[in-house]
């Protein structure tokens, strides 16, 4: 029997070695997943009928120039060699004849603007993070709050209103609501600022003001999902036997609701939130284009439309990493919420 940890009353601590082993295993798994994803992007990119060298070469293009462009873009070699070079660049850096040294982790140079992919991504990432985190705060507060309220007032008018409203909200489209919201709140009523991005470090107030409309619009759709999920989870948990036991112990409806039912409803919400946040960190394409915010979403769209493989790879990798990392976080949090879940 392993030595017992001293636990504070009512709170369980995960065995540190188990936790460590869990993290190591999941990180290794994540690395494998990223490897597969990047390889897939490579293959898919070359499966596309367009030749990036032919596009970069211009209108008057001799076979000699084309070969040179190929070499310059680093796509003259066979696919596995290219992939290997790219992979190696990640860890040890890479030498380019036309650009010089690219230090590790090197994601290569963009075909399009001839800039290091990494610096472009780092430049765009804060916008995407701001969008993701800000809207998460909004939709978590409103979604879970409304869902709880609907669960308390189950079957009553408030519940029906909240449920119908969330159904309508979830069928909205960002590009419609976004334009409408900008027109109404910004152009007509002058209540909010036009969407723009100011770095948080520069001016937090301007940062928030400029992102408020995108946050509200993006969270509208998520709020609806979280409302419905919270409501159904709460209603389900409230019918559990242990909730009845809690009532039989003399605990009030309120205590039962917030101490017992809430706990049971949290698990699935945490799971979905982890996935949603991971996805949002990969770039909210439609929201970013609706509000012309220069985040990863727009960057990836542009990379696809301009056949910019290094850029596309970089964005996909960041997006995949975000999802994978949040998956691991979700699993760890899950183990904290539910003692029956073992990190084994």
């Amino acid at each position, binding site marked *: 029997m392993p030595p017992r940890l001293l636990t504070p009353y009512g709170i369980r601590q995960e065995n540190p070695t188990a936790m460590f082993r869990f993290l190591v295993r999941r990180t290794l798994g994540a690395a494998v997943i990223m490897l597969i994803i990047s390889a897939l992007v490579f293959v898919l990119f070359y499966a596309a009928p367009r030749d990036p060298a032919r596009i970069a070469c211009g209108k008057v293009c001799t076979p000699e120039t084309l070969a040179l462009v190929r070499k310059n873009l680093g796509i003259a070699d066979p696919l596995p060699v290219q992939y290997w070079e790219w992979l190696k660049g990640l860890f040890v850096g890479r030498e380019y004849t036309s650009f010089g040294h690219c230090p590790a982790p090197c994601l290569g140079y963009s075909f399009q603007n001839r800039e290091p992919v990494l610096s472009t991504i780092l430049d765009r990432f804060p916008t995407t993070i701001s969008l993701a985190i800000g809207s998460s705060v909004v939709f978590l507060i409103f979604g879970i709050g409304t869902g709880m309220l609907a669960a308390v007032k189950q*079957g009553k008018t408030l519940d029906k209103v909240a449920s119908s409203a969330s159904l309508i909200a979830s069928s909205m489209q960002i590009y419609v609501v976004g334009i409408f919201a900008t027109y109404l709140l910004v152009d007509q009523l002058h209540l909010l600022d036009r969407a723009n991005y100011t770095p948080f470090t520069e001016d937090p107030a301007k940062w928030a003001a400029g992102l408020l409309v995108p946050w509200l619009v993006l969270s509208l759709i998520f709020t609806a999902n979280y409302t419905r999920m919270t409501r159904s989870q709460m209603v389900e948990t409230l019918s559990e036997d242990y909730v009845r*036991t809690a009532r*039989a112990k003399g605990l009030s409806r309120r205590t039962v609701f917030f101490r017992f039912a809430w706990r049971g409803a949290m698990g699935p919400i945490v799971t979905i939130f982890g996935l949603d946040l991971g996805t949002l960190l990969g770039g909210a394409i439609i929201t970013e284009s609706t509000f012309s915010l220069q985040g990863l979403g727009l960057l990836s769209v542009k990379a696809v439309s301009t056949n910019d493989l290094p850029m596309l790879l970089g964005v996909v990798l960041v997006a995949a990493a975000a999802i994978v990392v949040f998956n691991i976080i979700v699993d760890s949090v899950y183990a904290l919420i539910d003692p*029956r879940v073992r990190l084994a």
Partner: protein
Amino acid sequence: MSTPFLSVRDLRVHFSTEDGVVKAVDGLSFDLEKGKTLGIVGESGSGKSVTNMAILGLHDRRNTALDGEILLDGKELITATERELEELRGNTMSMIFQDALASLSPYHTIGAQIGETYRKHTGASKKEARERAVEMLRRVGIPQPDIRVDDYPHQFSGGMRQRAMIAMALVCDPELLIADEPTTALDVTVQAQIMDLLKDLQQEFGTAIIFITHDLGVIADIADDVLVMYGGRCVERGTKKEVLRTPQHPYTLGLLSSMPSLDGPVDVPLSPIPGSPPSLLNPPSGCRFHPRCAFAEKVAGGLCSTERPTLEIVDGRGSACHLTPEQKREIFDGFTAARTH
């Protein structure tokens, strides 16, 4: 005659559903003294559990109508406010449920769950509540209670969970304990241990116990008095010995015939009761048992299907059946003879 500790008078519990009104309990009366155990027997859907949820006031208030009287130590529970009931629950009256794993919160330690009841009703500190929880776990026979107190329900075995459940129910020394099939999910050895534990604790605290079960063997072990329920009504009442040895109602007889007897001859075949429990939405007319009763046609004038038999209790003994005393003697004496050599 002094007023009994718990007195239920003409209790009616009706649920309104989309299909109509379900008369889950339809005019039930019984008394229970301190230190005594009342066994309530009946099939699923006979109203056993509903009765007890109504006593605790844990019925769903949105669709349930209660009528009648429930007096606990002279206090009327049906008209009591939610606040007043919360004070009583877990404190003066508490309940043990059938499925201890489902009935204990998976998210809180055993100690926290036991201590929570104690803190709610005594205002004790977390530390005191924890000590109390350890003490209760020790009392119900959990080994190493000071360590196991921090375990979660899923780390306990089935029998230990039920013990923890009992510890939780008894933490405030309740005067009334309702045990809703507490041993049904346990294997027989553990079942026996739990029964012994309940009996010991009852002797120690003088708790009144309502023991709900469909297992007559369990009733024979623990009950002083027995109440047999069918279709939301009491069909027979009496002491354990009276009901189990000399039943006066065809349903009780059916129950007894459908279980093997250890001390009786082994070659008596078991005879299950034909048919299935009555719909409470649209219950049979007259005696609710008559469609399944083997003796219904013996009653003159088809009384069984037209008139509800009254339950007349004399000295705590009675049954609701239209059979004449002579007919009863003929039917039931034969049964008693067959069972006891």
